[in-house]
């Protein structure tokens, strides 16, 4: 009986400790709002993680230089602490737990669809605010504390369909999809249905895996089908190899990427611009390139600041931070609930002229509906000597 009493006491003590522990309850310490950024800083996706985080940090520096964000009459500076998830679902879960244990109330990320899906249960269990800037996968934003400031995966599909509608000459379409790309795989049926609804024919649907390097066999099969458009729905490294090998095997058709490569990445990975003839890219405009080509003043100024740290998702990071800062400034109090309430009431007019991407208003002029923004994608085309420009 005595043992039982001791056990009960120990259990009670444990529960008390757990209730008191698990990170601090202060949303800001010493006037600093700490943000946990869960991004791939090492591993194959690190090129995106490092550039996205660099843009977020630049935004934080900019706002801090102007005195920080004002919430309920108080000024706070922003501090971004990076957690490397290596774009690995298990690591993402682990570092997300670490961030929560360390008492972070504001979490940006994870970056990818797979890692975002893996941490979805932690999002649901936590009281923290989560913001997805790049991950396109459906699901996480069903949680009331998870907001997405970037595009949903359907934007990739819609960009392509809108563009195809303007190009009736494109009749026969083939596509190759990376089976590791959770978002693009989930959209494949909708894409095919949309293409067929436009009266075009999907003559071939192929698959590949992340890390493949030899695509000549599926490309040869595709070339035998006499297609007008070959869609490479893949990550950048594979996208580049597929494109090079299509041209090598004599394919001159239009190619459409979803890889989100910047001008600099094309230059580094492809070099030879003749390969890029008739290459388009569909999806949300994540890189600064097409904005710079259009002489957008925000893009020009921001490009100067981030320099060679600009990447495929610099726009997502820039605009995501704009929305976060606006949400904080509109909040009645510095708390997760205060921010969530403010974001749910945020008007497009509040961020107009501050973001790079165009956010179409939801009903009532709201930025968010069900924690999703209404962002439009576009198709860009490679222009020799310039890089990515908006396509007709």
């Amino acid at each position, binding site marked *: 009986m005595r043992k039982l009493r001791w056990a009960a006491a120990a259990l009670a003590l444990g529960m008390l400790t757990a209730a008191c522990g698990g990170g601090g309850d202060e949303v800001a310490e010493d006037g600093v709002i700490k943000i946990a950024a869960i991004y791939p800083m*090492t*591993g*194959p996706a*690190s*090129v995106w993680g490092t550039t996205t985080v660099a843009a977020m940090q630049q935004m934080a520096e900019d706002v801090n230089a102007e005195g920080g964000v004002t919430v309920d009459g108080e000024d706070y500076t922003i501090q971004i602490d990076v957690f490397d998830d290596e774009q690995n679902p298990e690591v993402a879960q682990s570092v997300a737990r670490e961030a929560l244990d360390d008492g972070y109330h504001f979490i940006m990320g994870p970056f990818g669809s797979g890692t975002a899906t893996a941490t979805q249960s932690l999002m649901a269990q936590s009281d923290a605010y989560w913001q997805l800037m790049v991950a396109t996968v459906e699901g996480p934003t069903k949680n009331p504390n998870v907001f997405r400031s970037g595009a949903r995966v359907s934007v990739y599909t819609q960009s392509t369909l809108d563009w195809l509608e303007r190009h009736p000459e494109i009749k026969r379409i083939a596509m*190759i999809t990376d*089976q590791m790309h959770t978002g693009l795989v989930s959209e494949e049926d909708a894409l095919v249905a949309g293409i067929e609804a436009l009266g075009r024919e999907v003559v071939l649907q*192929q*698959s*590949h*895996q992340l*890390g*493949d*390097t*030899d*695509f*000549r*066999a*599926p490309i*040869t*099969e595709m*070339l*035998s089908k006499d297609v007008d458009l070959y869609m490479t729905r893949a990550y*950048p*490294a594979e996208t*580049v*190899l597929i494109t090079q090998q299509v041209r*090598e*095997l*004599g394919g001159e058709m239009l190619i459409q990427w979803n890889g989100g490569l910047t001008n600099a990445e094309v230059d*580094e*990975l*492809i*070099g*030879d611009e003749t390969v890029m003839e008739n290459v388009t890219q569909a999806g949300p405009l994540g890189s600064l390139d097409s904005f710079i080509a259009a002489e957008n003043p925000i893009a020009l100024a921001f490009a100067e600041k981030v320099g060679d740290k600009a990447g495929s998702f610099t726009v997502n990071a820039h605009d995501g931070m704009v929305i976060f800062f606006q949400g904080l400034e509109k909040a009645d109090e510095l708390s997760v609930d205060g921010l969530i309430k403010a974001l749910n009431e945020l008007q497009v007019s509040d961020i107009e002229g501050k973001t790079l991407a165009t956010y179409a208003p939801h009903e009532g002029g709201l930025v968010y509906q069900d924690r999703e923004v209404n962002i439009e994608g576009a198709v860009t085309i490679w222009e020799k000597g310039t890089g990515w420009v908006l396509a007709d």
Partner: protein
Amino acid sequence: MDVFLQQVTNGLVLGGAYVLVTLGLFMVFTTLHLPNFAHGEMFALGAYLQYAFVVTLGIPFWIAMVLSVVVVGLIGWGLELAMFRRLQNASILAVLVGSLALAMILQELIALQWGQDPLAVPLPFSGVTEIGPVRIANYRLLIIGVVVAVSVLLGWLVYRARFGRSLRALAQNREMAQLSGLNVKQIGTITFVLGAAVAGLAGALLAPTTNLNPHMGFHPTLVAFVILVVAGGGGRMATIVIGGFTVAILETLAAGYIDNMARSMVVFVALVAFLALRPEGAFRVASAEKVQL
């Protein structure tokens, strides 16, 4: 375009990479009886050194290739002296674990030096040749030519040159070779350096046709082991060349006519089926324990 012939040509192009990687592994495995799982990292190092010489230092492509081969050969020498020589009398499990650990260390070192982002080496020349109904890039045509030339050269070295006799003696019976006065250590070192250099050549040569990443050596090494297993203990060098091209053509036809995702599976299904029917490999060896080069 004739689709079937083009697919076979695609297979030949892919096979060139497999053959070059397997040849180096074959020499080390048959002579020193070391299943070196870090062999793929010699391939990766060749590619990364080619990148460093061509892109970072601006050295002309062909000179860079010679430098890459020499440096990888020297690294192979260092590894043989520091590690593999000591594993000569160790159990097969120790060699497997040791070489796997070495592979991981080398991958991490490559990642530390060059990062994890994919890198590209520019082609030294472009252009495409049409041979009847098939198309092949001029550079890939050159790769096939180099594979054939290297195979012939190594074949001559092993089966015609004096050094080859020593090599084969060592492969057949290490103790007897030692007793008959051969400098076994020296032959072992030369063989290892040669194997690493051939893998380095493969990496440097193939660098412009792929994206470089620290793990790029894994798949070719896996395929190389498949070819070695299929060839069996009595397999000669020609078997390796034919095996490399056959595996690649099989893989390519599977990708083209079944499903691109099935390409590796078909190769391994074929391997399992083959081993079930002929567990000793294509060529039996006279001795139960020794292999024949």
